[in-house]
């Protein structure tokens, strides 16, 4: 892409190059819907580009971006739960139908079952737990980076991670047993 001397454009180019797929993947695993993840990724850029001049380099660019992505995801959950969503849900055929609008992405559906189960079991985690699991394992951020992105202490990251793994393990076990009995 060509910067054409436009500073916003060149910042975008750089951020896109370095982090786009990471941020997108984080959002996709968070909201589990490709279109929504695409929209939210754009929102991340808008917030970042508006705030870029305020970025003080206190945290790393990467963790800063993830912290914004996390806020964007959380805001979207909160907005979703607003009255608009409630009306939409009411007028849908059943909640089942709503769920079917977020099918397992092709990339995961083609893979071994365990990944599909994990993808489903993520729903049983709290939002914080899900964030930590995605950051730590799927995005491979370190404990320190995760703590920085979330503005948490490292011990809080560790505790949340521990709890999240416990939830996932329990749900996975149940799911595997159920599938095994079929």
């Amino acid at each position, binding site marked *: 892409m060509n910067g054409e001397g436009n500073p916003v454009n060149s910042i975008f180019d750089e951020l896109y190059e370095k982090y786009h797929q990471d941020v997108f993947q984080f959002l996709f695993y968070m909201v589990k819907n490709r279109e929504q993840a695409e929209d939210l*990724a754009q929102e991340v850029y808008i917030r970042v580009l508006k705030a870029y001049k305020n970025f003080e380099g206190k945290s790393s660019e990467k963790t800063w971006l993830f912290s914004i992505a996390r*806020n964007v995801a959380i805001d979207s959950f909160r907005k979703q739960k607003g009255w*608009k969503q409630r009306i939409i849900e009411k007028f849908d055929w059943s909640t089942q139908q709503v769920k079917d609008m977020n099918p397992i992405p092709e990339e995961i559906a083609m893979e071994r079952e365990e990944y599909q189960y994990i993808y489903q079991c993520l729903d049983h985690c709290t939002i914080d737990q899900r964030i930590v699991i995605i950051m730590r394992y799927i995005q491979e951020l370190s404990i320190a980076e995760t703590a920085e992105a979330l503005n948490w202490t490292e011990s809080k990251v560790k505790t949340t991670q521990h709890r999240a793994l416990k939830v996932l393990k329990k749900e996975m076990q149940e799911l595997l047993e159920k599938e095994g009995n079929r």
Partner: protein
Amino acid sequence: MKKISDEQLEEWLREMPKLKDHRDPHDIYENISKKLEERPRKPWIIPSFATAAAVFLMAILSFNLFDGASINHSADKSTQEEAATEQNTSLKKEESTVENEARMDVGNEENSTEMNDITFQATEDPTTAIYAEDLGAMQVFTLAIPDSQVQNIIPVSFLIEPSGQADQLAHIEEVMTSIDEQEWGLDDFYPLEADFAIDANNSTLNVNVAADHPYQNGSASIPFLNAIQHLLLNLNLEKAIFTTNETEKGMSTGHDFITEKVVEKKSNLAFYLFYPSHEAIKPYLVPFTESYSTIEEAFNAMKTNVDTHNLIAPLLVEQISSVAIDETNNRVNITLNQGINIEDTPETTQSIEAILLTAQSFGFEKVKFINAPIDTLGRFSLQEDIQVPIAANKKSID
């Protein structure tokens, strides 16, 4: 079935497939530059029209999808009605947003290019408490409502028309009957199974329960007594006297037998964020049971979640580098760490509220933030003195 080991689970997690964005970066850039250029617009107009239109269409397509009773007769008539009501509510919402905007815009104007003036900013005011400017001629009263796990007692506040003590009690009892706590993600606790009468001469609230009343064990009697305390505070009474079956003195609370309770205002509390498991847009700001001798201690405690009670540490508290008390102005000066990033999100605004409510609980009137990297956060102007709220967790009653 073999057990999954932690290692196995962690390995699977690390191997989770990569999910990629296949869009052309040019298209993404196009989309965001359009949004960046867009002037902030009245955020409700389009969604409300779209909703009205969607409601209309959905109604035509299949009116039996509505689970409300209003759409039973003629499809045509009812759709029109529905759309009309929808538009009405949107209009009301629009009005209130305009009001909110006006309030929030005061501080925002000068830095409209800053990050906190963002077109997709949540349209709803994220604050949860009642502030002096919300009060008008109304009066505040607070009910203590347990959360759905009966772990936390959440102070929920309402605005009512001012009235005399007796009327006020009638009003409060009416509210107790009409609220749907479960809809708010809380425990179905009210109305209380007790009769109340005010003895104004003795500044007393007489509380009568039946012999088989439901507050006879610890977990139920604590919120009950808490509710009574809030009633005393609301009604400005000094004590509650308990009777059973109208005639017998006192009431049993399981392990205890109480005859009277003197009003007691809990103060010096630390406020946390509590997200009910039920769908709710905003968290509740909830004081933990512990009292602290200084506000610094309270802030220190607020740096960590109270995991046993699902109370979440407010943001920003961890960034407090020092706290000073300005006694002349009854103000807390909070110095934040240099060079921090504050993002204008609902959670940040609510975290500020948690800090303000904590200050209020210690009897302070104002809070001043030093080193705040941005000028405004929601309705708060961070470069000026901020008045503490009047009461936590505002709810309206229709």
